[in-house]
């Protein structure tokens, strides 16, 4: 038995006869940052969180601690129970139907023993390799290399006893040329061996060094080739606005009343698949519901949104959790996809995607993406670190960064072609407890993307 599962059992035992679910998450991680072609910060984390969710008359109270002693577990359980009881005493019966029953969980490929050793010299070597490439290319680079192991266990009063270990690794580089232009490249994977620091640095440098003065384009509609990093931003916008089962149940979702109808181009096929070959897998959600492939959009038709136990109960009928709880009890965090997989298309690569465009924009990534109007999936974001002009079917020179304000569903409805290769993209942000997620998606070409302004230096 894993140490985390043993601890989860102890935590559940501390809850006594309560209807409860105990989660133990241990994170071990290393992150090395660099800027201006030298190391700047390095962080090593080893911490364990024990969370107990207690259910009383349909209300869930939660308490968490990072102390693992018996007294701490007892206190944690008591706090959770008192919270649930207080909530029940404050009003009517809650609607949380109960923690899920055990269900078979399948194994996955998301653990690498070498990565789990977290040898910091692996990261140090990656930095050295990237610095060498940058020096030869004549650019300065900044970025981060990180690897982590997360061990999660759940034990519940309904009989769930699960544990799951995952590893992940991520490296990104932003190269800055003497001109001030920047370029971005990144890779993510389950294992440190999947990260090619030299290739990342070279790709970023190549983008920064594309010759020519940046052209400032007028706002308006442009044909665009989005790299996978930018496509992933569109998908995360949809996670928040379209696929959130709670918003859907409350009539606020962008797909409310639209399931079963065509919402994007017939070329779009999108699922949430936690065991897909190149994703960052996980076996179950925060309530112990097994992960299973979920078709979200097929041939442009919206099929499903994601649910946790709570949002499924609110929607009612035959709706069940789809295994997308981020928190047991499904409260502060709403259900979200964590493993988008978007099928590729027929274009060999980004070069081929550019070929039909007489004049358009090539976008490497989007920055500070934020929802403006959720029901329309309207978002705004700024292009960054590799925005180029496409002329007569090929990338010719840099474009001053621009602001996009458009509908994510609308852009996907105007998709003309998809790249054949879907790649794992991740952001490597890791706020709070490490929870590595990523989207597997291709580059794409879309017509009529709405740019609301230029971010040219003023």
């Amino acid at each position, binding site marked *: 038995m894993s140490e985390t599962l043993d601890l989860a059992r102890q935590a559940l035992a501390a809850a006594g006869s309560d209807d409860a679910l105990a989660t133990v998450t241990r994170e071990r*991680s290393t992150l090395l*940052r660099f*800027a*201006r072609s*030298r190391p*700047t*910060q*390095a*962080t*090593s*984390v*080893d*911490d*364990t969180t024990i969370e107990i969710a207690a259910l009383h008359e*349909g*209300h869930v*109270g*939660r*308490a*968490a601690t*990072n102390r693992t002693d018996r007294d701490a577990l007892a206190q944690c359980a008591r*706090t959770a129970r*008192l*919270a*649930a009881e*207080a909530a029940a005493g404050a009003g*009517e019966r*809650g*609607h949380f139907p109960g923690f899920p029953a055990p269900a078979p969980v399948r194994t996955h490929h998301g653990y690498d023993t070498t990565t789990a050793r977290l040898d*910091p010299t692996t990261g*140090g070597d990656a*930095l*050295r390799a990237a*610095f060498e490439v940058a020096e030869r290319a004549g650019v300065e680079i*900044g970025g*981060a290399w*990180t690897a982590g192991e997360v061990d999660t266990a759940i034990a519940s009063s309904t009989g769930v006893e699960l544990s799951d270990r995952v590893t992940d690794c991520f490296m990104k580089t*932003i190269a800055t040329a003497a001109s001030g232009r920047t370029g971005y490249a990144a890779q993510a994977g389950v294992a440190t061996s999947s990260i090619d620091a030299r290739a990342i640095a070279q790709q970023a440098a190549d983008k920064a060094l594309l010759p020519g003065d940046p052209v400032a384009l007028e706002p308006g509609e442009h044909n665009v080739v989005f790299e996978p990093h930018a496509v992933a931003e569109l998908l995360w916008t949809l996670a928040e606005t379209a696929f959130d089962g709670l918003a859907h149940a409350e*009539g606020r979702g962008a797909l*409310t009343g639209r399931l079963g109808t065509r919402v994007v181009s017939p070329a779009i096929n999108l699922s949430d698949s936690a065991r897909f070959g190149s994703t960052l897998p996980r076996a179950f959600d925060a309530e112990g519901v097994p992960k299973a492939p979920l078709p979200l959009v097929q041939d442009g038709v919206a099929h499903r949104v994601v649910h946790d136990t709570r949002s499924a109960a609110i929607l009612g009928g035959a709706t069940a959790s789809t295994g997308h709880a981020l928190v047991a009890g499904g*409260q*502060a965090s709403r259900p979200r996809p964590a493993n988008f997989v978007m099928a590729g298309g027929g274009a060999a690569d980004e070069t081929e995607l550019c070929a039909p465009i007489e004049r358009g924009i090539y976008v490497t990534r989007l*920055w*500070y993406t*934020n*929802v*403006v*109007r*959720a029901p329309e999936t309207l978002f*705004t974001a*700024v292009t*960054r670190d590799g925005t180029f002009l496409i002329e007569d079917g090929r990338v010719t020179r840099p474009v001053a960064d621009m*602001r996009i304000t458009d509908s994510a569903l609308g852009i996907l409805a105007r998709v003309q072609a998809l790249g054949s290769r879907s790649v794992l993209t991740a952001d490597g*942000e890791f*706020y709070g407890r490490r929870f590595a997620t990523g989207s597997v998606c291709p580059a794409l070409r879309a017509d009529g993307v709405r740019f*609301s*302004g*230029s971010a040219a*230096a*003023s």
Partner: protein
Amino acid sequence: MREVLAKLMDSAAGHAEYADARHVRLRHEAVAMRNGELDELDSHEEEGFGVRVQVGGRWGFAAAAGSDASSAEEALARALAVADAQPVAATRRLAPEQLTEGRYASPADIDPFAIPLEDKLELLTAADTALRAQPGVTVALAYVESRVEEKVFASTGGALYEQRTVECGGGIEATAVRDGDSQSRSYPASHSGGIAQAGWEHVEALDLVANAPRVAEEAVALLDAPPCPQGRTTLVLAGEQLGLQIHESVGHAVELDRMLGYEASYAGTSWVPADGIGTLRYGSEAMSITADATLPRGLGSFRWDDEGVPGQKLAIVREGVLQGVLSSRESAAEIGLARSGGCARGEGFARQPIVRMTNVSLDPGDGGSLDELLAGIDRGVYIDTNRSWSIDSRRLHFQFGGQAAWEIVDGRLGRLLRDPVYAGVTPQFWASLDAVCSAQEWRLTSLTDCGKGEPGQMARVSHGGAPARFRDVEVGSA
């Protein structure tokens, strides 16, 4: 704990050019009611060590849970190992500082953790009920949070201090949904409500229940409100929206680590050059910005930062000209500042200190009351609550959206307008500031989710401001 950290620093001194360590014990509680049902009741406690070293010009930081000496020593060993694994770099000089010993506790009249949970739920139930009393409200949300952080810090430079801060606050939000449209109104702000470094007396003063009917009514009214008209006009910003404007276009832009390129890989850089201090025109003469870590009730207030540097009150912009920046000991030394601005903070125990905002505020002006400020406007728009925000990686080009706007006609607030957005370029926008209300209109707003750093860390900060008038701004409807 002071002894544990003092011994740890003795041990670190034999291995590192510099070291510091902090032990943090955090208690946080969040309670929320949503549509008559408990939405969130989270109680979280954690404690641990964060140890930072500099070895051969390379920084290493390690975090370990616990409170005993062995956990601290284990963290030190890992910090040394990650520092040593990196490529060798030139030693990073730190700005000099007279480091001392001391104790501090932030003022709080009523301990928020002494308030029975039942009382908190009663308050939230009343607010939730009042929100739902308005026909057309689909989602009602009422929430409070309480937080206590106890920190002990030591460094090889001789600092040894303890400080305890208490924060709490809350808010309400109503959402109306009809025919695929969704509109929300919040009080006192859309981002975590109103949180202050204060006791439960702050929550009581918010009077969530009394504000619920107005908030609910406005949410429903927005469904039928006309869109905010497109065009260049006079814009008055107040409350949270003004705070966020300051936060995004000034606060982040004057973080010295960004200005020097050390956040290029994530948060971004800045349009503000380090050699612009004293000369760079940031805005109009009506614009004066102060960063104040000593401000009562501010979430960015502390006695010492996480490098042991005392919290300070810094002039950032005076009459439109850049006068100062937000700095740490390392970044201050790099540009030759006499001392750090005392802005190094790390989240909890498991994140290393980086340059973070203290309370960055727009100084009050001489514009009088809000009514007096509006009196000078023939046509314009007033926005006080944020819905969306986006700014480029140099903090130059921005677009903000408000939950609601009010038209200004002939010097008075008029109709409610839906989906307002405005956009601008930082120095031009601040150059268009022509008046700020006087001190009686000055208020603090709070942000609890300012993300920066890798691995990501959230900072909590407050911004002060009085309603401010900007001329000839591009405004429209989302």
